């Protein structure tokens, strides 16, 4: 591809083969491009961007008692009220708790499994398959599995107080634990792949320099797998923000609303919250998702070591 300079001296990327192409050909290429994008853009338009606008609309309107009347405009004060309400703060607190219980524990366990299974031993593939196996479990299946463990009537651990679904703190921990278990396979697979990408010579050189196993792990391995760990942390945070099935199956939001996360309040399975409130809470969740993405972006651009 020859570099073409525009009037201001900036190089312009020349599309492949365009040197031999007529202007007419370029127009048909562009049209083909739009045509190829159209299906995906229609779906995104209708089910990602339009709903965002609709959420804003819903959050500043009030649905009439009778469905044949149009919604009435209430102003952005109503959205502000929703986002400063106890509903929002308690939902946020519970989501944060869920995160706190599930993300660090999930990361540590994933690293533990991956470090244990990252070695040349006969039959290691069997262990790797076992550690990856929870990937085959959906959230709903994981919820039923944990039902057999922590359900207050029939769960195997029903008498273990720190897993009890009858107490607010332990209930949240139990529910989060089902997420930790379900995500274990994913965490393991990603950390193992990262470990396998660490060049062995580095560890050998460090050993010759008298580094012990622990120092090698924290000084060499951890920095080198940090991009994968960060990626996982983000994935787990988002998965915590989106946790729903575990809560519905295990606690139904209880005890006394202690496991009602933000999404649980938005989904509102009992149908007790008005539309404008659920829409407002959805916008809150959207903002949180945005913050997580920003953190991801800014962290990715510094602090984290990149092998290349």
């Amino acid at each position: 591809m020859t570099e073409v300079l525009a009037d201001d001296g900036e190089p312009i990327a020349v599309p492949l083969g365009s040197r031999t192409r007529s202007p007419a050909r370029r127009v048909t290429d562009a049209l083909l491009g739009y045509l190829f994008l159209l299906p995906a853009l229609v779906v995104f338009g209708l089910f990602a961007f339009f709903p965002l606008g609709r959420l804003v609309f819903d959050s500043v309107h009030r649905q009439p008692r009778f469905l044949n009347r149009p919604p009435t405009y209430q102003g952005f004060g109503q959205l502000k009220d929703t986002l400063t309400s106890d509903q929002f703060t308690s939902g946020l607190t519970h989501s944060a708790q869920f995160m706190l219980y599930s993300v660090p524990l999930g990361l540590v366990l994933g690293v533990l499994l991956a470090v244990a299974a990252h070695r040349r031993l006969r039959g290691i593939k069997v262990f790797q398959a076992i550690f990856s196996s929870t990937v085959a479990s959906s959230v709903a299946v994981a919820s039923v599995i944990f039902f057999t463990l922590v359900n207050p009537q029939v769960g195997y651990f029903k008498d273990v107080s720190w897993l009890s679904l009858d107490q607010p703190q332990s209930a949240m921990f139990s529910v989060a634990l089902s997420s930790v278990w379900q995500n274990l396979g994913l965490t393991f697979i990603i950390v193992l792949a990262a470990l396998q990408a660490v060049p062995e010579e580095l560890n050998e050189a460090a050993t010759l320099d008298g580094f012990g196993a622990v120092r090698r792990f924290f000084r060499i391995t951890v920095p080198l797998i940090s991009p994968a760990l960060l990626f996982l942390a983000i994935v787990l945070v988002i998965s915590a923000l989106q946790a729903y099935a575990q809560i519905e199956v295990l606690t139904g939001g209880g005890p006394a609303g202690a496991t009602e996360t933000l999404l649980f309040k938005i989904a509102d399975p009992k149908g007790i919250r008005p539309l404008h409130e659920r829409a407002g809470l959805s916008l809150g969740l959207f903002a949180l998702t945005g913050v997580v993405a920003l953190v991801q972006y800014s962290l990715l651009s510094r602090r984290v070591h990149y092998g290349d």
Partner: protein
Amino acid sequence: MATDVTTLDGSSDAAPVAGPRPGRARSRWAAAGWYLVLTLLSVIVLFPVYMLLLRAISDPLAYVAEGQPLHPVAVEWDAFTNAFTEASLGRSMALSFVVTLVIVVAQLLTSVLAAYAFAFLEFPFKRVLFAVVIATLLLPIEVTLVANLQTVRDIGLLNSVPGLSVPFLASAFGIFLIRQGFLGIPRDLRDAATLDGYGHLRFLFRVAVPLTRPIIGSFVVISFLGAWNQYVWPRFATTEDSWQTVQVALRSIANDRVDQLNIGFAAAVIAALPLVVLLILFQRQIVRGLTAGAVKG
């Protein structure tokens, strides 16, 4: 196996531990230690699954009466058949398969086409449109749930296959992943194809797609996994039990009578089976798909 352990010099080659080898005796002990750790961890990871299987084959009342032991009680296998006859698991499994199939095929088509446009075609606002696609990652179904439910209700798609699948017919992840694959195709190949008079469609289906088959394969498997496991959307886009996907049907366990619980447990086992098969058959694709975003960041 047994013959490997006792070789002529009495050593075992069963334990080639990574890194330097500090003598045979020590490495053999180290290996034994690691096997112990790995076995222990396996037991912890598999224990919840074991409990599910155990409860699915035990008579629920007898099991509770026995004091909830670690072994099955009054084994009976009817729960697996009852799940189909009494809990109509067959219908919800079939529905899940259909919805999953629709989503996977649609995502594949829309992603391949969009990825091709971004990788090989030039048009105004290309960067803006790519940013628009990536921006949809900020708008997962959990955020848009409330408004999408209104839309789907408005157009009368509640309790239908189109209603269950329509928000997921395109995937930003798919577009991004397949575009990366397309960008990896050597320029020479593109130029040669142009010289041979290949149009875009022919290049796409004869060269680009076959060359990126591993990536596309990974995406298909990951897409299947995601679609099969959907919970929040099908939970609220259906108001009738007969339109519940298998994942949503599993939630009934929370309201079941104790003497019926084994049916729900068996249903969970059956619901997980397709993914177990998938995992065994396509382990490589799954690992590649899941790590796609991770190692490069």
